[in-house]
């Protein structure tokens, strides 16, 4: 039952969310009663009630054997009738009546100043109250919802962000309550034999989270490209979130060091999602990422770079957001690679401490100036659950990708690639 929008407007509006209202009406799945209340057309003379509303609802419910009823929005009733006493009584009766009918009813109302609803009645007579909110923080807006009340259930009490997109509304996954995910034992190659060797000879654990941090121009994206390339070569799908470059720019750059990703993208193994971080809030990014991951079901996710996400939120909220993302990826056994741009060589460890504790493997890339030349070196700062190398391995970025040079004699053999 719509009080504010006409049937035509409503059909057009929800079409953009992926609902075909006209078809649903034709299939008799839904019936829309378009109620118009026009106060200046109505003269009130003495006692009345809203039995007409009940009769219309009853008729509509019967005609499609409805199980769900939506009243959008009852504010219109308050605008249309001047006697609030009668309205309050009738609304209370309406809520009871809907319940007796055995239908689930969603009733929308506007939020009042300091109270949940403007007329302070609906929240007492209803079984569940969900508050929707739209806030702007640092010029970024986020929609959030919160369950204030749900009789007979132990509901979550936090605010959860949600997104309205082309397939309707999506709410963020709830932070997992415990650390219960299973840890897979199998390993995936990093794409570089020498790096695999540094990680106990086998590469990353599947489903682990990896932080790749380093200063500007240390080759974070290049290393990520090796990993992506190796993933696609195994025939697995990979989802790459790019926050600084466009996919074509990224692929061009990788082509210059001999990594060809176009073919993977064409056959659907590699999927890019490029967006400016400031486009929307952190939470919304998470929702969008979550949805992409749900759709593609990749085995590897790359976030390049994760810093840009930090620019849209505070350190705490970024950590909480990443935690939720990582939790989700872990439970789905998706390996995640995060690249992180560190400010300078001196601070490279401190800047990432906020998020590094969430990571299973932390690889540090650094550039050292020596004799008028810039040398690059890589070391594994930590890697949970495996023996790993502790040395700083020099590497260079060549026409054939990243080339690691290992000093120890054991790997001297591996240098020939």
């Amino acid at each position, binding site marked *: 039952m719509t009080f504010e929008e006409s049937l035509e407007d409503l059909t057009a509006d929800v079409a953009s969310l992926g609902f075909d209202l006209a078809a649903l009406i034709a299939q008799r799945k839904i019936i829309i009663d378009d109620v118009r*209340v026009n106060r200046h057309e*109505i003269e*009130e*003379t*003495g*006692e009345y009630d809203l039995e*007409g509303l009940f*009769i219309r609802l009853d*008729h509509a419910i019967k005609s499609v054997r409805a199980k769900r009823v939506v009243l959008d929005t009852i504010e219109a009733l308050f605008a249309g009738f001047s006697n609030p006493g009668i309205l309050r009584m009738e609304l209370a009766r309406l809520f009871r009546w809907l319940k007796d009918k055995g239908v689930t009813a969603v009733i929308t109302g506007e939020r009042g100043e300091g109270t949940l609803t403007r007329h302070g009645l609906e929240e007492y007579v209803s079984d569940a109250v969900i508050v929707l909110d739209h806030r702007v923080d640092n010029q970024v807006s986020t929609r959030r919802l919160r369950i204030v009340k749900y009789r007979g259930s132990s509901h979550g009490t936090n605010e959860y962000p949600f997104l309205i997109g082309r397939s309707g509304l999506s709410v963020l996954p709830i932070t997992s309550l415990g650390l219960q995910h299973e840890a897979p034992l199998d390993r995936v190659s990093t794409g570089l034999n020498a790096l695999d060797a540094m990680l106990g000879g086998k590469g990353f654990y599947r489903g682990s989270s990896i932080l790749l941090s380093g200063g500007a121009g240390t080759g974070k994206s290049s290393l990520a490209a090796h990993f992506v390339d190796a993933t696609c070569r195994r025939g697995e799908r990979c989802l790459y979130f790019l926050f600084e470059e466009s996919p074509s720019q990224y692929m061009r750059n990788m082509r210059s060091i001999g990594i060809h990703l176009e073919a993977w993208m064409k056959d659907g193994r590699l999927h890019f999602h490029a967006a400016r971080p400031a486009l929307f809030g952190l939470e919304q990014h998470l929702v969008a990422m979550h949805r992409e991951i749900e759709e593609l079901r990749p085995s590897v996710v790359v976030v390049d770079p994760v810093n840009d996400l930090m620019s849209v939120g505070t350190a705490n909220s970024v950590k909480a957001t990443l935690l939720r993302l990582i939790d989700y990826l872990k439970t789905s056994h998706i390996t995640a690679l995060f690249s992180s741009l560190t400010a300078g060589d001196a601070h490279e460890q401190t800047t990432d401490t906020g998020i590094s504790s969430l990571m299973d493997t932390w690889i540090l890339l650094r550039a050292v100036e020596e004799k008028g030349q810039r040398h690059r070196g890589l070391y594994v700062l930590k890697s949970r659950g495996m023996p790993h190398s502790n040395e700083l391995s020099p590497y260079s970025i060549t026409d054939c990708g990243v080339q690691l040079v290992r000093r120890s004699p054991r790997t001297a053999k591996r240098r020939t690639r």
Partner: protein
Amino acid sequence: MTQAARKGAEQWNLRLYVAGQTPKCITAFANLKKLCEEHLGGNYTIEVIDLLKKPQLASGDQILAIPTLVRRLPPPIKRIIGDLSNTERVLVGLDLVPK
């Protein structure tokens, strides 16, 4: 010629929407009948619609409140809700006296 008499010369078509024989509805009908006799002479028809029997008619005239009186003729359509006990307001609502 008074305004009431002038209006009275036109043909009036009134609809009273009720839901069963509730006291409010009976009162409304009695009040309407009396008022029409006094102000409209014989030039009126009253159609009583019981929505309990014909619920499908409620949406056509946008009925929410019961009882509702709808002036179908002469145009424009007017809606008056309540038991019509306030004769003054009903006459205003029906344009029989100026506001």
